[in-house]
């Protein structure tokens, strides 16, 4: 799960890319590996990587984010330090990319370098409880649209099946089944399922391709 230096999380708007990227970076840091997380989201105004700033800092994950994220400045900006993902090959780079083809646009300038280095995993984050990726055809459509713009091929699938607080084992198992079917059609392998800690033990009994994840705390009001 952790063998490639650059790991990209892309997918449909609201599929849980930030959530998976943050938790993946934390898992790398936990292994004592040097890791930076890059917020390349130029689409989403709220609920950003920077919400997990304190957790990431505590775990020793370097956060490269637009200085305008979560402020009132409404411009699609990236941090100039984002080029470090290609320049500094001593560190793992986890890339959190904006949703759909509109979000993937931001990756274009880096894709050539990533493909050239050829030490990357490009993960398609899928939540089959999102209406537009509820069926296989919809998911394939989103996948193709993103790949065209990002100019980088997907290498695997992440099952992020969830209904927020209402998620149960049933949803995650359905996600596995869905992603395996999607894999048959696309030739991509299901790399892992992201599973919130309260469900981790019961899922782990059935499959070992699991990334234990913690919810990002956005506010006390949810």
């Amino acid at each position, binding site marked *: 799960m952790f063998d490639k230096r650059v790991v990209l999380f892309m997918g449909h*708007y*609201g599929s849980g890319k930030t959530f998976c990227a943050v938790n993946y970076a934390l898992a790398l840091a936990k292994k004592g590996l040097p890791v930076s997380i890059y917020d390349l989201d130029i689409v*989403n*105004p*709220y*609920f950003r990587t920077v919400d997990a700033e304190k957790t990431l800092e505590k775990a020793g994950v370097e956060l490269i984010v637009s200085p305008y994220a*979560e*402020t*009132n400045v*409404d411009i699609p900006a990236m941090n100039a330090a984002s080029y470090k993902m290609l320049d500094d090959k001593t560190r793992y780079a986890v890339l959190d990319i904006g949703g759909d083809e*509109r979000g993937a646009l931001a990756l274009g300038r880096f894709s050539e370098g990533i493909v050239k280095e050829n030490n990357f995993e490009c993960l398609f984050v899928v*939540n089959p*409880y*999102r*209406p537009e990726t*509820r069926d296989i055809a919809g998911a394939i459509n989103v996948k193709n649209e993103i790949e065209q713009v990002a100019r980088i091929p997907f290498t695997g699938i992440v099952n992020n099946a*969830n*209904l*927020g*607080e*209402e998620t149960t084992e049933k949803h995650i198992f359905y996600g596995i089944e869905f992603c395996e079917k999607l894999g048959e059609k696309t030739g991509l392998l299901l790399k892992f399922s992201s599973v919130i800690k309260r469900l981790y033990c019961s899922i782990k009994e059935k499959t070992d391709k699991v990334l234990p994840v913690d919810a990002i705390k*956005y*506010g*006390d*009001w*949810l």
Partner: protein
Amino acid sequence: MSEKVLMKGNEALAEAAIMAGCRHYFGYPITPQTEVAAYMAKRMPKIGGTFLQAESEVAAINMVIGAASSGVRAMTSSSSPGISLKSEGISYLAGCELPALIVNVQRGGPGLGGIQPSQSDYFQATKGGGHGDYHLIVLAPASVQEMFDMTFKGFNLADKYRVPTMILADGTMGQMMEPVSLDANAVETYDKSWATVGTGKHEGRNVINSLSLSPAQLEEWNKSRYERYALIEKDEVMYEEFMMDDAEICVVAFGIAARVSKNAIVAARKQGLKVGMIRPITLWPFPKEVISKAADKVKAFLSVELNMGQMVDDVKLAENCKKPVYFYGRTGGVIMSPDEVLDELIKIEKGEAKQW
């Protein structure tokens, strides 16, 4: 009930509009409502509907006037500064007696303000915004599910009374994701023989207009519309009561502020404070009666809002000076924490809070 899906508030609202029969959307992008337009741009062409990104908010609302005149379900959406631009057209909709849905996913103001959530367009939504004698029906959802359900309600009420209806959401309601059940609500149909669909389809000429050459006639139009407003105030008030049975302090809050307050109330109850909440779902018509009745039982009111104090005046008018009214708010795109609301409740209990 069909299986739930996970959606952003903006997406749920857009999907509901389509399910409610809306095939005419006119808009212009602005954070934090852009997903409504983006969703419509993707979906409308697939179902034979019209998504049109206008050259400005002013153009978009005028396109709504045109579409609504022909009797179809038409809508537009924007965020605070964009709604200010639409205000002239909203007044024209009211004057023309046209049903339409206007969505405001509020951000901080005044002016360009900021992109973070706010409820500071309460005055604009409930007290006019545009010019002239008119009201909007104003619905305030407090969950993604309500973003979905209120959209059906908004179209139904607009058609029923021939008035423009507004959904007053805020950035968090638009952006946050929650499980939502996409079961269609009732789609009510009302007589639209007034629509301008060509003389071949109705008797005589139908005219949609807000200009009157005679003051007496304009007064007549306004009076007849206010008769309908009176019916709306009588029949269409919506609110939710939370832990009000034995409450001594009554929080009044809507939308995201109600979500925060609910958590504060649960925490306050654990400390032995008897707090409850009345959550207006319609901001106009305002739930005056239930607040007035509560004033006979509780000892104080606390209005919690994401602004400098706008709804609090309506709370005061409704409780009619029977009990002290307090206010707690954050503004500029800052959301209060439940702890801040709890502190305010404790201050009220101890007699240390300042009255509004």
